[in-house]
């Protein structure tokens, strides 16, 4: 059975800069793909390409049978793919509830229905009690949870999480890991960009490593971590020889 997401030989150039070069991978339905790599490896760029925020210089992307290279982000959301942002983007002057309502309106028929769905999503991330707070006033941990709840409210088939655990303390990270696993249980497919290796090991079914715009390695978390090229990319050649 074909994978839900197929990234085929995708390249993205900015003038002379090769942000992504010939990247290919697949994400089977219901699985979690961990996407790792040093800073500047091109992880967010490939996210942007997949979710329509950037066009493709080369290659193709297929989601649920549809070719989505160059398609606008709102169209991609309607097809069932949603993302979060590395630098979190709350709708600051709206309430927490209204933020999630905006997401829910993607598929509900009326604002009233959207509100009901939104409340549900907020409960799932344990933020129901914060429904009336202004999103702009939230601390970073709650902002991240809000962004995930808002994305899930669009009732997606696939969620792309961009460094969702960045800047969180261990307790908050643990919350988010449980959330990601719960989302997997609901049958959703996910790609998770993360620097926290322990988290990646725990949640990923497969891992793709990017470095300098190219795919460096792919495999199960254990395989990837043992791969000397990966270790070298992260830690430097000297350590790789150990």
């Amino acid at each position, binding site marked *: 059975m074909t994978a839900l997401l197929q990234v085929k030989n995708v390249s993205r150039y900015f003038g002379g800069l090769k942000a992504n070069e010939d990247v290919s991978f697949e994400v089977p339905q219901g699985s979690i793909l961990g996407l790792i790599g040093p800073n500047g490896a091109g992880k967010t760029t490939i996210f942007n390409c997949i979710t329509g925020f950037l066009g493709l210089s080369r290659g193709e992307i297929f989601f649920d049978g549809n070719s989505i290279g160059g398609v606008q982000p709102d169209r991609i959301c309607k097809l069932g793919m949603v993302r979060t942002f590395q630098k979190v*983007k709350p709708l600051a002057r709206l309430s927490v509830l209204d933020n999630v309502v905006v997401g829910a309106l*993607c598929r509900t028929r*009326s604002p009233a229905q959207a509100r009901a769905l939104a409340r549900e999503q907020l409960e799932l991330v344990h933020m129901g009690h914060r429904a009336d707070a202004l999103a702009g006033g939230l601390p970073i941990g709650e902002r991240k949870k809000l962004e995930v709840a808002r994305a899930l409210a669009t009732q997606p088939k696939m969620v792309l999480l961009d460094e969702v655990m960045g800047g969180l303390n261990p307790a908050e990270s643990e919350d988010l890991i449980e959330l990601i696993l719960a989302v997997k249980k609901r049958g959703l497919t996910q790609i998770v960009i993360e620097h926290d290796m322990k988290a990646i090991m725990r949640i990923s079914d497969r891992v793709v490593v990017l470095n300098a715009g190219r795919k460096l390695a792919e495999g199960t978390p254990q395989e990837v971590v043992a791969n000397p090229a990966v270790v070298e990319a992260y830690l430097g050649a000297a350590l790789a020889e150990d």
Partner: protein
Amino acid sequence: MRLFRSRQAWLGLLLIACALLPALIKSPYALHLFILVFLTVMLGESWNIIGGFGGQYSVGHAAYFGIGAYTSMILLRDHQIPPWFGVWAGMAIAVAVALVIGAICFRLRGPYFVLASIAVAEIMRNGALNWKGLTNGAEGILAEVPPFVLGPLHIDFVGKVPYFYLGLILAVMSIVANALVRVSKLGYYLQAVREDQDAAHSLGIPIALTKNTGLAISAALTALGGGFYALYTGFIDPAGVLGIDVSIQLVLVCIIGGIGTVAGPILGAVVLVVLSEALRSNLLASALFAVGVPQGSAIGQFLKTNLAQAHVLVYGILVVVTVLFMPDGFLGFFRAIVSRRKRAEANS
């Protein structure tokens, strides 16, 4: 006390009070002020839909106002079509112009919409000045309003009272429209686009379509207001309905009152109309003299002759002061005080 906490209760009370006013107040000047307030409220609420909710500041909304005014006047003058029919053509044209501006600007990031809105209003004003065959240029169009006849209903537009009620109805309509948009899918989407366009896009919101819809509704309502203005004054000219000061006034109403709220433009309209009339009729000068500024002195003379012309200067100062110290308008200012007090109570 709980009754008076509800905003709807306040507005409802206000509505009833307004409806009863003409029975109590007979002064044409007072009624005229109310009509101005109603018109300004209507225009403010209309601007608010795209400017307040959508965050797209049009500083050229006079274009739609003028289109509404000129279309209804021209149709009246040349084809004897009464303004309450003619204005619909004006609204359609306004929507068309809005969609053109939107098509050009809403796919761009940056301040282009503001600039383009000003340019389009200037194009309209220039066109109205130069296309003398159609608009009579700077001399404007003067036309008499026919009576409104519908079956047994016959309303002569004589005196202020018919305009009072018409204005009140239009103001209420625009307030209701605003409130409806606010809780609708469009309202949520507009606000999302305003807050963070990328986030909105990722959540399935069609950015250009959302902005265009908001602008089209706003343009139509503003044109309707223009038609009412033409009906009421019986005379329009390019400077009066297409000038930049008209556009600025519309923005000012919303930012003084409180942008993005339903009640804000009401507050802003009252403040602005009272202020500009106070200046125009030398009320402010008289008040200053009463307080002790010597009439005979140089300053006194200066004030007396010039304060009446100063209302645009006051607008400018108000804009600067509001942006610097009260970016959320009076309403936001009060709300901040109230929430600060609540927080203090909660902490004590």
